[in-house]
């Protein structure tokens, strides 16, 4: 059964429609990657699902409820989290305070979860009293992901989690994504490193011009000639 079901959605910024008649889904426990050229509407789709943009047409369902038009606080309570591509940490807050903000809607009683996050990202434990502004790019990405995991979401939306990181750190991020998925969290990922992302994905969608052009299993898309030529580019 679909955990997330996007049904014929149109969306965009103000008068400008970017997504046209998008339908896609994420099943419980699945990793789904969105690939496509710049401007295809991948980030717009994530923002629309997370309630930062309002669909002008269509419905979005999450679990067994219609979530069309709900705001982020309501979605966070229902078990959805989002890590934006940029500005995804609070730089003047400490590592621990950043993680606490991830559990804001819960109130108290997240000490155990905090401990789990430090076990999952051991590098953060040592720096928990430090301001995130002074951390490296890789550490900041860990803080951003840890923050989004604080409420143990059913679905995690990641917008370009490997952007701007060194190849070694990109590998680390994908390892963590696989581990998060093994813990039962479904993920919907927008990623430029399309090959690496598709390799660990159950399914993928190719977006272009605000529409779904292709849908398939991760390895199917990887071996598809046209996808390879158009979207996986000259990269390895």
């Amino acid at each position, binding site marked *: 059964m679909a955990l997330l079901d996007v049904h014929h959605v149109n969306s965009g910024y103000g008068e400008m429609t970017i997504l046209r008649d998008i339908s896609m889904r994420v099943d419980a426990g699945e990793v789904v990657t969105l690939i496509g050229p710049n401007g295809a509407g991948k980030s717009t789709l994530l923002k629309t699902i997370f309630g930062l943009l309002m669909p002008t047409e269509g419905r979005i369902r999450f679990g067994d409820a219609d979530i069309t038009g709900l705001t*982020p*606080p309501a979605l966070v309570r229902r078990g959805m989290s*989002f890590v934006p591509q940029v*500005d995804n940490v609070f730089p003047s807050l400490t590592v621990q305070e950043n993680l*606490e903000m991830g559990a804001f809607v819960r109130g108290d009683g997240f000490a155990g979860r905090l401990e789990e996050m430090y076990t999952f990202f051991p590098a953060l434990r040592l720096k928990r009293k430090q*301001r995130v502004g002074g951390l490296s790019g890789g550490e900041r990405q860990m803080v951003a992901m840890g923050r989004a995991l604080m409420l143990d979401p059913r679905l995690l939306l990641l917008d370009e989690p490997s952007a701007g990181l060194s190849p070694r750190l990109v590998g680390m991020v994908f390892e963590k994504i696989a581990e998060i998925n093994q813990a039962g969290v479904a993920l919907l990922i927008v990623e430029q490193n399309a090959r690496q992302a598709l390799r660990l994905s159950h399914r993928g969608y190719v977006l272009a011009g605000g529409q779904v052009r292709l849908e398939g299993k991760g390895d199917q898309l990887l071996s598809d000639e046209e996808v390879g030529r158009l979207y996986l580019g000259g990269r390895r």
Partner: protein
Amino acid sequence: MTELLVYGVVLGGIMALGAIGLTLLYGVLRFAHFAHGDLMTLGAYVVLLLNVELLPALGMPELKWWPLSFGGRMLGSLVVSMGVTVLVALLIDRILYHPLRARRSSPAILAIASLGMAFILRSLIYIIWGPQFLFYSQELRPAWVLPLDVRLKPDQVFILVMVLILVLLLYLFLQRTKLGKAMRATADNPQLALVCGIDTAHVTAWTWGIGAALAAAAGVLYGIDAQLRPDMGWSFLLPLFAAVILGGIGSPLGALVGGIILGVVQQVSTAFLLPTYKPAVAFLVLILLLFVRPRGLFGGT
């Protein structure tokens, strides 16, 4: 000279209370709140209304706390005045700034709207109380003579203690409480605060509350130290902005330090210059510091 330094800390502490509110409001709401000085004036006149005009007429005596020139009735009026000023600020936000935010108006529109609100508040005070100087108490109390020939009035010690208590309470609020942390988070990155599920409307209301309460306290403390005039807060406005910028915009600690530095510099300058030049000296210091640290003392994280 030492005496001017001490007076500067008193003035600086008062300015810091105003500047901290201004910097918090800027951090969370992203606009320069030009009516902040006039919230100080409002707070000061509410105490005048209660403690000088209303409560004595109702036959409520002031039991003075020796050696201060006032007592518990004054302190009670101060607390009520902070509450009244908070309510006024929330009401203004509801009828003026909230509709502008809902229409996604630019920060410049909000700042100009607040400038208009500053004129309205000041004019109302002119209409009700008139333009003349007014005093909480004209009674002369002997100053204490401290080492280094520093004369300090007991009332001024009270002002310093009050500033210290309020700053400490604010620090504990911002560092230890969930709401305080959410306020810092919202100032840091409003979009991400929303993504975390933080109720930004709630945070906005609390920011107004804290900003207005501190402004009212600053106005009353200035009234205790000096006198009340309808333009008292307005004349504080530019030095308050200077303190905010000096400390680094958005940093409450910066606003505290900036306020005290500017208070001291302004007072000490009167040893060499006419008091009329006080604001000019404040801005000279600001310009010099910005050459060295363009983002202010505690800015730039």
